[in-house]
């Protein structure tokens, strides 16, 4: 088990994966800004206000470790690519249905221009009342996999180059006092033949880091991922289970001394879960992993849900977690330590 970071959290700490629906007025403001009707300063103020509200909303729902809802990010790869030298954009491509994203293309040598999410963290830290906040960063493999590569001779070379850049960002966040960073790698298992070197590359982002590092992988092959639990230099794996009806929970037994961020809220369904189903999911998870190694979160980012549903889902998540906590509290187990 990782070293203690000197902070206590309630048993089964609740968190989010990262994104949260933007308030309607913020979406309007962004539209106005894109049309040149408001300036950068006004947009920045709107982003800050939105973060304050969204953090407050998470905290009121009872979430122990909030994020800033990724209010400033349109999309998880595009946001980083736009801030790293060497990328260019040709236009949107479909992800599913009528949903598109600006898929970047690597057109020249990549370079770390300046901190990417450092100011996001600093602002989040200044507005949250919680002792720990979560900062999310898209991982090098997913950035590469969701980009076109026109420059590097191989995808492997590109991923390692990106890993150096992401590592610099994480070190900057650590330096600024961040305690919990989650690296998002939803693409990790999509090319099984690339897993060996992909894991090595992802581990490069952890070089010199001694705060808490989580790895989020969703809608993926967890049997395959579980073979690399030990090798991946992360103390927590935030995985999606509600959407798959809690199939594959048995992989938790392979986590060893690592933690699970248990996905208990289906972010692709507008149906609001029952608190008892959340409690049952946690209980099921305890059959495979010790309770002090379980964090509770939605399956993935909540941004595609209507805001009122996202909030209700978080409330239900916390209510369900509280049901699960009761038994442990009566046994005198009410706290765990934040570990790196």
């Amino acid at each position, binding site marked *: 088990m990782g070293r203690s970071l000197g902070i206590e959290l309630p048993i089964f700490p609740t968190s989010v994966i990262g994104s949260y629906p933007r308030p309607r007025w913020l979406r309007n403001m962004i539209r106005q800004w894109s049309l040149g009707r408001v300036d950068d300063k006004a947009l920045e103020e709107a982003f800050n206000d939105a973060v304050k509200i969204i953090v407050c909303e998470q905290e009121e729902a009872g979430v122990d470790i909030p994020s800033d809802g990724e209010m400033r990010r349109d999309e998880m790869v595009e946001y980083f690519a736009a801030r790293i030298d060497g990328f260019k954009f*040709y236009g949107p491509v479909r992800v599913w249905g009528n949903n598109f994203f600006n898929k970047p293309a690597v057109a020249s040598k990549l370079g770390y221009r300046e901190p990417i999410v450092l100011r996001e963290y600093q602002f989040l830290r200044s507005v949250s009342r919680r002792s720990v906040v979560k900062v999310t960063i898209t991982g090098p493999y997913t950035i590469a996999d969701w980009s076109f590569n*026109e420059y590097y001779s191989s995808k492997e070379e590109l991923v390692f180059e990106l890993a150096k850049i992401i590592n610099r960002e994480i070190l900057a966040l650590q330096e600024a006092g961040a305690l919990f960073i989650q690296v998002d790698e939803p693409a990790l298992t999509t090319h099984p033949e690339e897993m060996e070197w992909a894991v090595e590359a992802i581990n490069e982002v952890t070089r010199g880091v001694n705060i808490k590092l989580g790895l989020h992988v969703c809608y993926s092959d967890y049997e395959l991922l579980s073979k690399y639990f030990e090798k991946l230099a992360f103390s927590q794996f935030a995985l999606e289970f509600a959407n798959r009806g809690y199939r594959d929970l048995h992989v938790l037994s392979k986590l060893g001394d690592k933690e699970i961020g248990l996905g208990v809220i289906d972010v692709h369904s507008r149906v609001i879960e029952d608190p008892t189903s959340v409690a049952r999911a946690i209980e099921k998870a305890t059959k495979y992993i010790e309770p002090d190694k379980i964090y509770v979160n939605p399956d993935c980012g909540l941004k595609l849900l209507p805001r009122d549903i996202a909030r209700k889902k978080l409330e239900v998540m916390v209510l369900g977690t509280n049901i699960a906590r009761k038994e442990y509290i009566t046994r005198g187990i009410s706290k765990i330590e934040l570990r790196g």
Partner: protein
Amino acid sequence: MEVYLMQHGIYPRPRGLAKAISRYISGKLSREDLEKIYARYIEKFFKYMLNLGYDRFSDGMLRWDDIFNPMISGIEGVEINGLRRFYDNNYFFKQPIIKNKINYREAIASMLLEKSIEIAKKMGITSDRVALSIPGPFTMATNSLLDQNIYSIEEFMRDYVEKVIFLEVEKSLKIGVKNIDLHEPSLVVYEAPLNYIENIYRELSEKFPNSRFWIITYFGYKWEVLQTFTRLASKNGNIFCTVDVTEVSPPPWNRIIDLVSMGDLALAVVNARTTKMENYKDLVYRILEIARRRDSGELYITHNTSLEFLPEVVAMKKLRLLRRIAKSVREKLYSRTPHSKE
């Protein structure tokens, strides 16, 4: 050998159309107005195909969310639930879950195509240049969640062909569409019961001798699969197989020459999953080498998968590149052969 230009599958949904669809979904646009917008973009797509000189093409499939939807919404016994990744892409589709024995009462894909055919006809495009696109049986089966108590994979494929594909082909013939594109990436990605699938395709092509069936394979290359279907194509003249040479390094050019000597085929030489442009000169040289192996027959040149994996601007560029390749190949080929073509 005659060299033809072929487009297939889903063209990138233009931003203006995507916005209109969002407005329709949120109740801000009427169905009637949305239909007008669809018509405008489909016309634009056809105009583009005409200008570039494509010999056969889809209608852009601008109404489709993926190669399964909306067609599967009309299949009884199928529930649509949850998102599933489309092979190894950052692209998801609503997965069909087979809950009961399937039935199909309306040929949804052909009905949608019929609207495009009306537009095409007004533009002077004959319906035999346009293709209907639907998932092939093995791709449908491997991308569905099958309950083994209801269907084995073979039983499901058989039922899907007899109930869904038959109806679609019948309807498409009524509207004058002969080209049926059957998307079959699973054939080269997964292990397939090849003999069984070959029989299904043989029966299909024999039942509908006036249709032309295109087995569109992509995301991989499997020699035994391509050999099987090219051989079938040589026996039943109304079957074509596409060969994706873009995902193999180095491309198996010598084996393609063997395939071409067996029968007609469509060669996918442009990769619709990368913005990097292919080497024009090299492709012209390779295609010429292949085309010169036979005096008669048809060789189609195309892109591997649907162009929708690319931003629209790059998709257009790739279509122009294919046109340039075809033009150059034809010029060089026909200048040497007696049956030279305009």
